[in-house]
Each structure stands twice: as C-alpha cells, then as structure tokens.
C-alpha cells in the first residue's frame, strides 16, 4: 500500500522534468527559427535603405532615364508604368480570383468540378513566373506583333488568380454556416447571401489574400521581360511597350556602369516602399468602415 505513492511520486517528478525540458527545447527552436527568418529580411531591408536612400533625389521621381554617361536621370516612367501594369493586373486578376474562390466555396463544395478547379489553381500557383510571361507572349504579343503593357498586365493577372481564388475559398470556409442560414432564412436569395453576407464577413481575410497576391507580382521581372518589355521614354499607352520598375532595376543592375547601379538600388528601395505603402493604404481604407465589437 505504501510503496505505490512513493513510486508514483518519483514517476511524476520525472515526467514533470521531462515535460519542462521538452517545453524549453521546443520554445527555443521556435525562437531560433524566427530569428533565422528575420535576420536576412532585416539585413536586406537595411542594406537596401543604406544603398538606395543615398541615391534617391527628386529627379528620380520626376525624370526619365538618360543615356549612359549623362549625369542624373530617374525612373519616373518606370514608376508610372509599374503602377499602370499593376493596376491592370489587379483589375483583371482580383475579380476573377474572387469569383473563382466564391464558386469553389459556395457552389462547388464536394463536386468533381470543384476538385478539378482547386487542383488547377494549386498547380497554376506553382508554375514558374517566366512561363506566365510566355503564355501572355503567345496569347497577346505574338498575335499583336508588338510588346505591350497590356500583355504585362495580363501575365501578372494570371499569376494573381490562383492565390486570390484559394485564399477567398479558405476565408469563405471560415464563415460559420449558421450565418448563411440566417440570411437564407430571411428569404434573401442565395446570390445576395453570398455577396452581402458571406463575402462581407470574410472580407478582411480576402483583402489580405489580394494584398499578398499584389505584393508578390509587384516585384516580378520575368513575366514582364517579353510582354511589357520596358521603355526608356514616357509612355502612357497600355497598347505599347511600357517601362516597369522591376525591369528597369534588372537592366540597370546588370549594366557595367556605377551610375546605373546606384539607380538600381534606389529603384529597388522605391519598389519596396511602394508595395508597403499600397498594402498599408488598402488596410487603412478597409478598416475605416469597421464597427465596434464584432469578433
């Protein structure tokens, strides 16, 4: 009778010790992993700031590139071009992606077609970006016989669709079914329920997904190489070759000229700041109408 409690006390203290060692070990591994992820990120940002900020001036934002050897010049046309291509890509890719996500989550759950679309989206997500460029090249550039901002926008839009579609689907899946039933129970038609209840409830997550897709394609160079092509001059015509920041950075960084290297650093910094600014702006804008409380 008396031997058992002693033994179990011994076992208990052993178990406690083992658990606390395991606990500390796993926590430690998590902290080290986080640091390993953060170090390169902070290093890149810091180095970019150090290299890029010194080359930034007003001319960078107001002037177009100048020939090699001439001092000064900027990337104004590339900034505008990037904005135009990304605007077009978002305009095409986000509605299409959200539409596909709504189909997957609200209409095709458990169907053969839904599984096929989901699988296709996942495969499309893993396709190298240069292949997207080739697709847009053969779909648009080869037909039109010239490079264009339009083709660049389409290439980036195709890249955005799978990310947006899958996050939309996943976010809609988190909307509790009783909320849908509440709407249907009021005699609200299904399409209205999807638009005004399901999508609205899932909107914070869907916006995050769209921003992720946007940030990812904003820095893409490969799909633009033989679609938007780049342009040394001002161009606002989406039907013509147009400059883009990643392209300009790519060309300048590979050049043998110090002046161009400087500008490439500045360009990279501006690109990152632009992405961060647009993501932040969308967040602020999306949060403006939010109500107190909620969940």
């Amino acid at each position, binding site marked *: 009778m008396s031997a058992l409690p002693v033994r179990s006390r011994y076992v208990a203290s052993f178990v406690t010790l083992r658990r606390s060692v395991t606990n500390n070990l796993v926590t430690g591994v998590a902290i080290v992993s986080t640091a390993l992820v953060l170090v390169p990120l902070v290093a890149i940002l810091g180095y970019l700031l150090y290299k890029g900020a010194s080359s930034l001036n007003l001319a960078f934002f107001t002037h177009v590139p100048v020939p090699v050897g001439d001092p000064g010049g900027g990337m104004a046309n590339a900034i505008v071009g990037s904005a135009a291509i990304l605007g077009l890509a978002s305009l095409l890719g986000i509605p299409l992606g959200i539409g596909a996500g709504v189909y997957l989550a609200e209409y095709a759950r*458990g169907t053969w077609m839904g599984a096929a679309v989901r699988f296709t989206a996942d495969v499309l997500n893993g396709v190298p970006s240069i292949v997207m460029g080739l697709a847009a090249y053969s779909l648009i550039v080869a037909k039109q016989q010239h490079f264009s901002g339009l083709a660049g926008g389409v290439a980036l839009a195709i890249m955005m669709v799978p990310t947006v579609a899958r996050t939309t689907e996943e976010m809609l899946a988190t909307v*509790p079914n*009783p*909320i849908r*039933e*509440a*709407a*249907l*129970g*009021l*005699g*609200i*038609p299904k399409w*209205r*329920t999807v638009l*005004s*209840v399901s999508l*609205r*409830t899932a*909107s914070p997550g869907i916006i995050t997904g769209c921003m992720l897709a946007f940030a990812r394609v904003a820095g893409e160079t490969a799909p633009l190489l033989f679609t938007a092509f780049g342009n040394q001059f001002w161009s606002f015509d989406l039907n013509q070759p147009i400059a883009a920041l990643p392209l300009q950075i790519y060309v300048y960084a590979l050049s043998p000229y110090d002046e161009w290297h400087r500008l490439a650093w500045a360009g990279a910094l501006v690109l990152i700041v632009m992405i961060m600014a647009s993501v932040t702006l969308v967040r602020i804008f999306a949060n403006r109408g939010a*109500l*107190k*409380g*909620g*969940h």
Partner: protein
Amino acid sequence: MGVDIRVENLNAWYGPVHTLHDVNLHIPANHATALIGPSGCGKSTFVRCLNRMHETNPAARAEGKVLMGELDIYKDATPVEIRRRVGMVFQRPNPFPTMSIYDNVASGLKLNGFRKKRVLDEVVERSLRQAALWDEVKDDLKKKSGASISGGQQQRLCIARALAVDPEVLLMDEPASALDPVSTAKIEDLIFKLKSQYTIVIVTHNMQQAARVAENTGFFLMGKLVEFAATTKIFTNPSDKRTEDYITGRFG
C-alpha cells in the same frame, strides 16, 4: 397575422437516412406549438421542412404536403418566397457580425432591395420594441456590431431581425438552449406576447419551457410524431406510453 399550417404525409431524408416518417399535423394559427423529443428524433428536421431550409443541404430532400393557409409551400412557391413569410430563429444566436445592430434588423428588407430610409427606421424600431431590445440598444444602433452585445441580447436581435420582414409564422429551433436562465425567461416572455400575432412553432429540450409557452405540444421519437395534443394533456395525461416514459424521464 399568423396562418395555420397543415402537414400531410411529410417524409424527409438526409442522403440515404430516412429522418421523418409520414408526419401528419395541424398547427393552429396565432398559437404557440411546442415540439419535444430526444436528440436526433427529427424535430429540427421537421421545422426546417416548414420553411424549406431542409433542402439547403444538397444531400437532403423532403416529400409530402405542407399547407400554409391556402398555400402549398412545396408546389406553389419557391423556397425564397416561403422564407419571407416564415421567420426562423436558430439555436445559437447568429447575428451578422459585420453589420450594425440597425443593419441586422433591416437586413431582410435591405438585402431584398428595399431602401426607403424612413420606413426602415420605423420597421427597425418596431421590431426591436417587439423583441424587447429597443431600450437596451437604441443608443448604439449604428455604432455597435450585432455580434458585440451579450448572447441573450443577440438572440433577441435575431428575433427582431426575423420579425422585421413581417412573417406569418415564426419557427424557433431551441431558441433558448444556449442562454442563461434570465435571458431564457425574457425569450419565453416574448413568445408569450408574440403568439397573438404570429403562429409560433418552438422546438425545445426543456419540457417546463414547452409547458410554459405552448398551447399544443407534439412529441417526436425516431422520426415519427408519436403524439400531438393540448400541452396540458401531454404533460398530465398522455395517451401514448412512450410519451409518458419520456416526460417522466424514463429515457431521453
């Protein structure tokens, strides 16, 4: 005003599982009718057949006749039309979390394209008063989310939301089972007041609740309606042995 409901030979299935067997029932207008029975006996399925919510599950189907007044709801109308005339309150409060209290109540009208602000204001106030919630929320109507108030308040908000579309029938699927006793008492008071204007069908696990609010009670067991009679008769002198076993706590 409420209408009566006449159910004839109603059968329902979830996939291959036959969950309702030949239910025949007459629910009188402007009264509260309680449905009791152990979990899984088909009482929730039954009320979901009365506003055709049952068929929102792709694997589910129902057969039989349900007459709401003169209207055969499975033949003469679409599910959307039916649901505008039959309000539903669910087991767990389910206000729309992204909408304000005001928009929650107005949603049935607004999302069906109704936009006249003055009328909406009136409907929202009337419905919240009917649900005995007006005094508690009138200062936060457009500021607070429907999900930010307490559970009991949320459930009354859901009742107000259902009343705002001016239904003839109100279905309540265990409306108080997720609530504390004080909130439960408030919901029961409401049912008591509302039943003069609406036909109320309430599913409940709580037999005292059925006895308190309903004139008639039906007892379901394994997908069949075992007995349907005046509540006092069901609880004092049931004609079926199984009803007696259930209400005296011998099973379920």
